């Protein structure tokens, strides 16, 4: 990979992911805990704003503390990062698997199967997904853990783009001679799909994963931001950013918004840069990059 921007994106993404997965280790290193309330670090007479500059940043609280509760912001951010990444990763993996299966079978089998599924995919593509992601939160039973609910609904609506892209690619590949040869020599359907087609789709899949991951991160954090995703008691980047609105309006504690935002931006931008570079490298044509 020769693109400098792509490489920078990959490094940023990797660092942030590692930070997320090592959340307990990092907070232990800092000597803090995301669930400890430190009432003595916030000014109760001043609306619960942290003492000290930039939200109370100092040697033992690297990102300062959360206004109101005094919980350590660095610990909240890295634990929140872990929640956000895990949900988005699970949703992306599931949606890419569904999308690939649907797209490949559509492109390879063709006929009425392709027509019917194609209509359905077109329909889902113009669907107000966000509205229904929000609406669905009302009817899911409350005894299913919220992260699981989020990952499932995000995957259920997220596979459409992948299916479209894989469909066109498969249709092009299916017309090539090596597929004809495999079919003519009596290779079973499953081996044609997995052994012949799939290896040729690896590049496209890499691009799809790299580009749908940041979109999933943004939506999953967005739902928590709106208060219909992860509950407010679990550390999550979206929840943190959502609860920082009140403090942003008064401009009292900018650090509370800025630290989680920067981390979220690093994941989203890093993955997008990586995906964009991969797209150029593998020469994949996505919707907006149609030429």
């Amino acid at each position, binding site marked *: 990979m020769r693109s400098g921007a792509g490489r920078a994106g990959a490094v940023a993404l990797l660092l942030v992911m590692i930070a997320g997965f090592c959340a307990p280790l990092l907070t232990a290193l800092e000597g803090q805990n995301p669930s400890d309330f430190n009432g003595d670090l916030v000014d109760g007479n001043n609306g619960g704003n942290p003492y000290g500059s930039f939200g109370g940043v100092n040697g033992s609280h690297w990102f300062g503390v959360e206004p109101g509760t005094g919980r350590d912001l660095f610990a909240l951010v890295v634990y929140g990062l872990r929640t956000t990444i895990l949900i988005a990763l699970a949703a992306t993996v599931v949606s890419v698997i569904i999308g690939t299966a649907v797209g490949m079978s559509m492109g390879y089998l063709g006929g009425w199967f392709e027509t019917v599924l194609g209509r359905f995919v077109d329909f889902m593509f113009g669907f*107000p997904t966000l509205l*229904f992601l929000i609406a669905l939160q009302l009817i899911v039973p409350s005894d299913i853990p919220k992260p699981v609910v989020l990952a499932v609904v995000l995957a259920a609506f997220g596979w459409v783009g992948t299916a479209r892209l894989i469909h066109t690619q498969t249709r092009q590949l299916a017309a090539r001679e090596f597929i004809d040869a495999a079919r003519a020599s009596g290779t079973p359907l499953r081996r044609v799909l997995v052994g012949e087609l799939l290896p040729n789709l690896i590049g496209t899949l890499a691009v799809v994963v790299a580009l749908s991951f940041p979109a999933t991160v943004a939506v999953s954090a967005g739902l928590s931001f*709106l208060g219909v995703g992860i509950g407010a008691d679990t550390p999550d980047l979206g929840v943190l950013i959502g609860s920082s609105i009140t403090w942003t309006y008064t401009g009292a504690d900018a650090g509370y918004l800025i630290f989680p935002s920067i981390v979220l931006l690093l994941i989203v*931008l890093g993955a997008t840069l990586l995906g964009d570079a991969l797209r150029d490298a593998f020469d994949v044509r996505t919707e907006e990059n149609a030429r």
Partner: protein
Amino acid sequence: MTSYIARRLVVSLLVLLAISFCVFMLFYSGPSDPARVMCGKPCQPERLTQVKHFMGTDKNAFVQWLDFLKGLFVGRTYGTGAEAAHCSAPCFGFSFDQRQSVTNLIWSRLPVTASLALGGAAVSLLVGMTLGPLAAIFRGRWPDALVRGGSLFLVATPAYLLGLLGILLFGFQLNVVPVSGYVALTDSPVDWAWHLVLPWCVIGLINAAGYARFARNQMLDELGSDHLLAQRATGAPKRTVRRAARRGVWVPITTLFGLDLAMLLSGSIFTERVFSMHGIGDLLIGGVSSHDLGIVVGTALFGAALIIVGNLVVDIVQGSIDPRVRRG
């Protein structure tokens, strides 16, 4: 053309029926009983039956769907006697919590969302159609790199982050624009626009990224096309050629614009939340947090209907411009 429009119309109606059917099956046969929420605590069984009967949720989901469809065309009345609540056509459901028809609720929120969506869409079109072709003309040089880098950044950035950072910078640090709230256009046009400047920029810039990328690529295609090569060969000045190329970019952009506008109208949810504006997205979220199934189903179906109508309009406009679409 007439048969094309008729065909598209029938398909759109079928899609709407299918969506509403699925939504009713999903939302009204699930374990979450809207009557139980309304009944209060403690909830006596006789009272629950009464409430269920009043709300119409004692019937099965399929019958409730038929009731909803009927309500859309002729309106419906919940309950009887002094307690009865009337919901006139088109009835998108009834919020028993607020004792108002969902249609009225949506209608009261529509100006906010429409102001956000129309202004934001206009900004995005303006910015995207200025910068995209510009990047194409300067292909490979710094204006191109700037537009491409900028649009990559904006495509990736979530709207709520851009909005909040905008508030922090322009609203608080520089203190130039108001950060929240909506003023009705009829109250004061100046205040209306002034409160919307920042939200418009946020929606506008995020959507402009897509337009700029698309317009750039389209413009490159146009500039490389045979008819413009012929025009250049006749010795036409650069400006004339560029103007002709720009005209070719507008056609596909209009399609994109129609779809985006419908998408925005059905809920600029994040922007509404960031700037504390009470539009349709806010209505939906309020419905979810107060467990008001009537509002949630009504708003979601209204949003879906808007998008499908938007698609229909785009298809018809495209069909009248380009005969090839009609046959497809």
